């Protein structure tokens, strides 16, 4: 993103100066004051292999018995003046990425670089990052003190930095005007403001210290569409005017589409696809992105709503699936080489395997449904429940044997048998996400 310097904003000039200082080692970057050579500079934020694992402890001795892989090797970069969207379902690790990126939680692995300097490891990178980063939170009601006027709330970061009262008032007046609020709003309390106005106050506060980087956590959640559109327009204006870099965290694909240059799709703690927003959302390379984009309801009453787009939810990060983490829900999972199965049929076998492994098959329930409680009718009921295929050859024999094991309650043996007989690259190996502007972590050959 080569945006020219916004000379109208004195803060921007100051930032440029800081940036130049910090890059004194990289003498070849030349004079940044001219606004040239942005492309040669490192992106403002570079996240490489970020990890946040939490230990799971159990028993009286609190021994470590497992690991929750909330964020597991996430890499991305945000250029100056660029907006990156981070999308994914609840439980995919979006918020943990933001918190570890800002070192609000210490990451357990990986590196973060901000404006050319490493963050963490005792350096002053953290201070620099925090001083020049602002957050806009999801719920403005909980981030605004009900007993504090909008003006005071917005001035809070300035007060903390010891800016004099009169100077604060002037600054807030400018900020309010910039975010579309009037002087009149300064003396109002949060309950006297609409949802959209509260967001604007939150944005004014975020801008108070002239940040270079703004992290927005679901900035338009719970807003009506017309207000949502206004807030997104405002954020786009501000980004242009102040050359801000932004990280948008959202589960709303349409918000990201509207507000972001690039998007990173997060699933179970990993980035599965990244690239320019339009390309990724209009022509997704990863089946998860495809499913996510298809699940967004289209406001066209004649369009068929995609049915059964994606079942289940994000897997437990304490026990992520082997291989590709999405394979347990993937509608396009690659069937085993040696069995004559479609993706959907193979998906049914995987569903059975996952439920057996989790002890979720519920034989008792099946028993109430069949007339005879003998093993044969129970096996038929189980096949019907999971819509299991009946392939020829070894695969068919293995599946029958696994079903027989399942109905006598030997879940472990059934799981083992399915694993052995129904191998696939998706189960064996977690695909790597390639390099480059547009990349996706999937075993499927690119179309």
């Amino acid at each position, binding site marked *: 993103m080569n945006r020219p310097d916004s000379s109208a904003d004195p803060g921007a000039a100051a930032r440029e100066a800081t940036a130049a200082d910090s890059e004194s080692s990289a003498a070849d970057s030349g004079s940044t004051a001219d606004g040239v050579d942005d492309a040669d500079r490192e992106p403002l934020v570079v996240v490489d292999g970020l990890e946040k694992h939490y230990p799971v402890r159990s028993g009286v001795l609190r021994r470590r018995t497992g690991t929750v892989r909330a964020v597991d090797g996430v890499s991305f970069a945000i250029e100056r003046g660029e907006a990156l969207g981070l999308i994914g*379902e*609840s*439980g995919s690790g979006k918020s943990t990425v933001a918190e570890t990126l800002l070192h609000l939680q210490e990451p357990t692995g990986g590196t973060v670089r901000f404006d050319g300097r490493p963050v963490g490891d005792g350096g002053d990178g953290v201070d620099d990052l925090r001083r020049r980063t602002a957050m806009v939170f999801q719920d403005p009601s909980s981030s605004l003190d009900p007993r504090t006027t909008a003006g005071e709330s917005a001035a809070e970061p300035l007060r903390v930095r010891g800016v004099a009262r009169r100077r604060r008032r002037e600054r807030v007046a400018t900020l309010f005007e910039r975010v579309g609020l009037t002087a009149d709003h300064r003396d109002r309390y949060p309950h006297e403001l*609409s*949802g*959209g*106005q509260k967001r604007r106050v939150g944005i004014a506060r975020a801008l108070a210290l002239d940040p270079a980087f703004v992290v927005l956590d679901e900035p338009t959640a*719970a807003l*009506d*569409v*017309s*207000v*949502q*559109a*206004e807030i997104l*327009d405002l954020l786009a204006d501000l980004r242009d005017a102040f050359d801000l870099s932004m990280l948008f965290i959202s*589960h*709303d*694909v*349409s*918000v990201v*589409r*509207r507000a972001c240059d690039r998007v990173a799709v997060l699933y179970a703690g990993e980035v599965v696809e990244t690239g320019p927003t339009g390309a990724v959302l209009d022509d997704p390379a990863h089946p998860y992105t495809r*499913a*996510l984009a298809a*699940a*967004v*309801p*289209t*406001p*066209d*009453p*004649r*369009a068929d*709503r*995609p*049915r*059964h*787009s*994606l*079942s*289940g*939810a994000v897997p437990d990060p304490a026990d992520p699936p082997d291989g590709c983490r999405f394979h347990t829900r993937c509608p396009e999972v690659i069937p085993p080489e040696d069995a004559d199965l479609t993706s959907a049929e193979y998906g049914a076998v995987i569903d059975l395997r996952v*439920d057996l492994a989790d*002890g*979720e*098959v*519920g034989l*008792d*329930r099946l028993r*109430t449904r069949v007339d005879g409680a003998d093993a044969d009718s129970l096996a038929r009921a189980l096949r019907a429940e999971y819509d299991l295929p009946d392939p020829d050859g070894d695969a068919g024999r293995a599946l029958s044997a696994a079903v027989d094991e399942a109905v006598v309650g030997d879940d472990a043996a059934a799981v083992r048998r399915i694993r052995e007989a129904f191998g696939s690259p998706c189960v064996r190996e977690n695909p790597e996400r390639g390099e480059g502007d547009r990349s996706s972590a999937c075993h499927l050959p690119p179309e």
Partner: protein
Amino acid sequence: MRDLRTQFPTVEGTVRAVDGVSFDVYPGETVCLVGESGSGKTVACESIARLVDPPGEVVDGEVRFDDRDLLACAERDLRAVRGDRIAYVFQDPQRSLDPVYTVGEQVTEAVGYHRDVDGAAARERAVDLLDRVGLPNPAARADEYPHQLSGGMKQRVAIATALAGDPDLLIADEPTTALDVTIQAQILDLFADLGDEEGLATLFVTHDLGVVAGIADRVVVMYAGRVMERGSVTRVFERPAHPYIRGLLDSLPGRGGERIGGEPPDPLDPPAGCRFHPRCPHAVGECRSGDGPPLHGVDGGGEAACVFHDGVRDSTVVEAGPEPRSERDPTHDADTSTCGADGGPR
């Protein structure tokens, strides 16, 4: 629902949350009630089975359900209807689930409340219902507590509880708003199945026009306590007659049309005339006075409360003089002027 009026007295004045709202829901159909926050859609729903919390009060109107006026009948009779014939699902499933009981106990209790069955049969029916709403492994899940379930699963349990009495009408207030799109799609599938298979009529409250397009047969658009437009979902989305719903549709990502500027009116002091006029790009003199236009029939079916409902000025409405005072409430006029009589602030 005919001319329903629900008000909330507050220290600062009376909020007319629902101010003369009428619509129908036929058996087996899904009607979406659409509007921004504060438009009165939730209060309208709660008024149907008289669930409005005091001091809120339904002051006028009629809710006919099976040839009975629910607003006039005794509380005892109403209790037989509520839950049994009309059931509610709320945005936050926590509101219908008790954290200290297992989900099985809660659904079983709901079954026992509506049906005269013994414990084992009630429990069996409860597990059936949990299965019906697509809760995985329902027999085992029945022994779990709400906090052990994901948001989507909790909403499924809340729906199972609502279905316990075999209702004819399900009133769902933003049931998917707090969910991920993928989970939302699953829950919408469930609602569609319930309508198709059980002939359940659904009144679905949402502000998400994508959801409306996906599930509605007919749409009722509310703004500031009034109905602005009614009609089939295809007609309303393809040929919206009221500038408000047109503006909402234009605000959708990808449409790039003109947005609605400004803010919804102060519920204590709504503007005279059409309540949308301060934000309306087409407002003319007559929109700014009186009690607002009535619902006019629209080409293609349905009605719209706009003088331009047929695309041209309605000649039967007499051009009003410059800003006459509202007879009902003289304070309205002050509000109109602060709102900017020439349309929205943008």
